[in-house]
């Protein structure tokens, strides 16, 4: 057997989902007994059969990728519950195995996959993806991207001397702008706090906290929010922003000059020109403090999808 063929057959067996009791499947995807398939390339020894030897790798693979997804999407796990999240994870990772050298990219296709498979987003949402689930996935993926994406040189006061309508500024590539239908940022922060306490609290306290979290998820009310997921001193933060600010920042990211970007941001806004001036002063001051603006030329222009 040539090397490539052997590696394809072994990878197929290793990455095939485990049974409900976390054992290697009895049959391959095309219905062949797994025992026979594996015995054709793995040698048994005096203690383990061929399939038992391969099972060590298969279990290790699945435990590793499931743990990684669980670490990356704690908020989604809180929204769906432990069992539904596990079911989703197995199905997603079976359809979308890792395509990157880093496990950090494991969730990159989760939102798109959920759009096609909404039945995994909890009971009662089989026809369309529950916006709460979708929003949490977006937020958690944005968090991962904001953590280690590139930072460009920050525009300083000397760069802003020529600030006028035709001035172009870019937005730091690590910033993710989100328009969400649920205030999932608060929920995610709460989940984080709960998980930090996990190592120190007693079982009784943990159970109570779990009940509180479940209640919090159930009571979460629909509320349109705009969020900038950004990084400051290497920490990821969620900053609520106004709809106009969201529009303006997106326009800057798309490469519009500041004058046009302001028009875009305030296009459907009812604020007065005085209010607008005051908002702009406040926003530009905050962006300067947070280092959000950078030169436009080196920034990859990305269309942000809502």
């Amino acid at each position, binding site marked *: 057997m040539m090397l490539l063929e052997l590696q394809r057959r072994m990878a197929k067996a*290793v990455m095939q989902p485990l049974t409900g009791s976390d054992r290697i499947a009895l049959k391959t995807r095309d219905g062949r007994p797994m025992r026979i398939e594996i015995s054709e390339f793995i040698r048994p020894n005096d203690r383990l059969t061929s399939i038992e*030897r391969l099972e060590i790798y298969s279990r290790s693979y699945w435990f590793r990728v499931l743990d990684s997804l669980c670490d990356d999407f704690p908020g989604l796990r809180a929204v769906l519950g432990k069992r539904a999240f596990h079911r989703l994870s197995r199905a997603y990772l079976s359809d979308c195995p*890792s*395509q990157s*050298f*880093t496990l950090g990219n494991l969730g990159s296709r989760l939102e798109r996959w959920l759009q096609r498979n909404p039945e995994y987003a909890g009971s009662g949402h089989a026809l369309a993806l529950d916006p709460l689930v979708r929003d949490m996935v977006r937020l958690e993926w944005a968090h991962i991207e904001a953590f*280690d994406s590139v*930072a460009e040189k920050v525009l300083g006061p000397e760069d802003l001397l020529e600030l006028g309508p035709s001035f172009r500024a870019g937005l730091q590539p*690590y910033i993710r702008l989100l328009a969400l239908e649920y205030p999932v940022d608060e929920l995610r922060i709460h989940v984080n706090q709960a998980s930090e306490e996990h190592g120190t609290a007693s079982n009784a306290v943990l159970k109570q906290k779990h009940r509180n979290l479940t209640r919090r998820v159930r009571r979460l009310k629909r509320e349109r929010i705009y969020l900038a997921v950004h990084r400051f001193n290497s*920490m990821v933060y969620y900053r609520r922003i106004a709809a106009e600010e969201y529009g303006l920042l997106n326009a800057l990211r798309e490469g519009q000059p500041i004058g046009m970007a302001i028009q875009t941001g305030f296009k459907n806004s009812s604020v007065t020109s005085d209010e607008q001036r005051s908002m702009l002063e406040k926003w530009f001051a905050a962006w300067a403090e947070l280092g959000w603006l950078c030169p436009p030329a080196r920034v990859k222009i990305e269309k942000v999808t809502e």
Partner: protein
Amino acid sequence: MPANRFNGFTDYGIGIGLRIPHYAHIFEKKPVVDWFEIISENYMIDGGRPLATLDLILERYRVVQHGVSMYFGSAEPLNREHLRRLKALVKRTKTPWLTDHLCWGSVDGAYSHDLLPVPYTFEAAKITASKVREARDYLEVPIAVENVSSYAEFHCSEMAEWEFLNEVVERADCGILLDVNNIYVSSKNHNFDPYEYLNSIPGERVAQIHIAGHSTFTKFTLDTHDHPVIDPVWKLYDHAIRRIGPTATLLEWDDRIPSFDEVHAEARKAEQYIHAPVAVGL
């Protein structure tokens, strides 16, 4: 043979793996450590905290890069984007040599994130060696390949593991990262004599040594890196040092990680073997 062309003619002593739970201790106490080994993939990113932390470490300590996903033994070509990111990191850390595993882990674009064993065939040796050469030429840094722990053997293997390792390193003209714990683990899983393995490898190619702890189950032994090094592995290490000479050594501890001091103390146990009188060429 502490310094050779496979470790950039350096003379590093006892190192430990740089791990997140130890960051606070390292930055606060600034302990004296010969060198740190980093997992390259953790820093092959564009920005953020991991790189900022690495830069602080580089200000004070010597760092050697250890990779887990170059997959020299994969039948498919090297990933160019992976190499590009790795080269950027090599420039940042100025690692005198670079290591990765003699294994495979991805096929048709799907990654297992594991160190899967390669069948010990001449075809696999040829492919693996050619990829090691290609990586070294692109990265412009000496490369040493590490023997992995394995739990499976293939019908199609044409030689023993140590013969395969020799075949690869001779063809690639590269170094060896000799993991004595992996030799011990595999010897238990595949019923071979670990000393025969050690006596068969070309000592002049060993750039670095790994030591670690593992876990023993009823039917197999697992390379878990979550325990201190056991005596039989220290004995193997002693034998390796006597045969090869004092060599840069690193303790791997990746799970259930104890305090920095505990990990460092465990690693420094290697000093008694390194400083013992050496009879090279046993």
